């Protein structure tokens, strides 16, 4: 590294250390840019693919009230995807490239969305646990160092809390219902609990990017810290529902002021990341179909806009 770029890097780090935000046109190390493009686009893809397991239940929602709520939530997730794609684009990657990376399977998205949503109770569990876990991560990211990403997070966090509340309300209703309904809620918790814990990513000692991410203030807390925070806040919520968290090692640790919990099946996690989850192929297929089937609409809109612009020019001339 030559002297000039070393100085630039030092200045950059000093700005981060001083708590300044970095904006799109500011100088930044290439690796900071690349890391952000990867992280923000993965986040965007997760919002978009995340619409699929829930969209699956919109037509089967048990009441109009539930239906409008779920529809609004899924629409919000589309918006979240858009805010995030826009933030990624400020770093010099195009929307088409981002779509290509998702559709070709080159880009990753949160593994949680490769699990199937089997019953109506899953809509409760997803809102409560999956959005709950996402919120913890996203609240941290409102303080991230890259300005456009942080601003997208502020907007997203404002919208998320209804997502979690509508999910918890679904669980609550089921738990106050018949035996069968309560069993359905328990079954959903059993299936979504562990994948939700995996959403925070590998354990700190197996997470090679953590150190650099903390130094650049991309992340403010480690995966394990966030995971613990999620467990500590969620266990009392499960108690309130009268449901049992499917972890026989789960118990309050007075000394730590936190819950101890059992081992996570990381083999399952990596297997899903590698593309072998129950729904990986189905999700990618749905995304590709949506993209391909929308092509004529995108093209027609461009053709129409060009024609209108031409007309304007010829009228003026």
């Amino acid at each position, binding site marked *: 590294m030559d002297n000039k770029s070393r100085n630039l890097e030092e200045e950059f780090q000093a700005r981060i250390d001083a708590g300044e935000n970095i*904006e799109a*046109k500011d100088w930044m190390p290439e690796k900071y840019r690349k890391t952000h493009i990867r992280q923000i686009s993965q986040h965007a893809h997760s919002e978009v693919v995340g619409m699929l397991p829930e969209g699956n239940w919109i037509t089967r929602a048990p009441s109009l009230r539930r239906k409008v709520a779920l529809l609004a939530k899924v*629409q919000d997730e589309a918006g979240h995807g*858009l805010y995030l794609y*826009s933030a990624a684009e400020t770093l010099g990657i*195009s929307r088409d490239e981002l779509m290509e990376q998702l559709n070709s399977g080159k880009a990753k998205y949160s593994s949680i969305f490769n699990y199937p949503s089997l019953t109506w109770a899953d809509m409760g569990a997803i809102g409560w646990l999956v959005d709950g876990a996402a919120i913890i991560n996203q609240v941290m990211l409102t303080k991230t160092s890259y300005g456009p990403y942080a601003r997208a997070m502020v907007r997203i966090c404002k919208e998320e809390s209804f997502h979690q509340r509508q999910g918890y309300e679904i669980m609550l209703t089921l738990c106050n219902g018949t035996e069968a309904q309560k069993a359905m809620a328990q079954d959903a918790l059993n299936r979504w609990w562990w994948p939700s814990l995996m959403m925070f990513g590998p354990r700190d000692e197996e997470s090679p990017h953590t150190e650099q991410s903390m130094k650049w203030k991309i992340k403010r807390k480690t995966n394990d810290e966030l995971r613990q925070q999620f467990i500590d806040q969620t266990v009392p919520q499960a108690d309130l529902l009268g449901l049992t968290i499917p972890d026989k090692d789960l118990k309050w640790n007075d000394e730590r002021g936190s819950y101890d919990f059992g081992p996570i099946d990381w083999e399952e996690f990596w297997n899903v990341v590698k593309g072998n989850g129950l729904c990986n192929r189905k999700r990618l297929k749905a995304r590709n179909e949506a993209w391909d089937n929308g092509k004529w609409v995108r*093209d027609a809109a*461009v*053709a129409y806009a060009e024609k*209108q612009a031409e007309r304007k020019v010829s009228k003026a001339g």
Partner: protein
Amino acid sequence: MKKEWPIWEIFIRSKNGLEHRHVGSLHAADAEMAIQNARDVYTRRQEGVSVWVVESKHITASNPEKSGELFEPAKDKVYRHPTFYNLPDEVKHM
């Protein structure tokens, strides 16, 4: 045909009496569609009463590397602030 819709910057007035503020960007084929999309993306919870859309390529931004020469001259001009002037406490309404 392979053409990406252009990017638009979106400005929203949250209520009359306040200025339009930049809220983000989106893609749209033309201005009309940009307004429609901005409505759907940025005002789902009544966040606005008016929208401006500007195609991003029409915005000229100052260069952050020149921030020093652009903005620093204002730094030492404390006499532009009311607190620079020493007046006795007895003077009221000033």
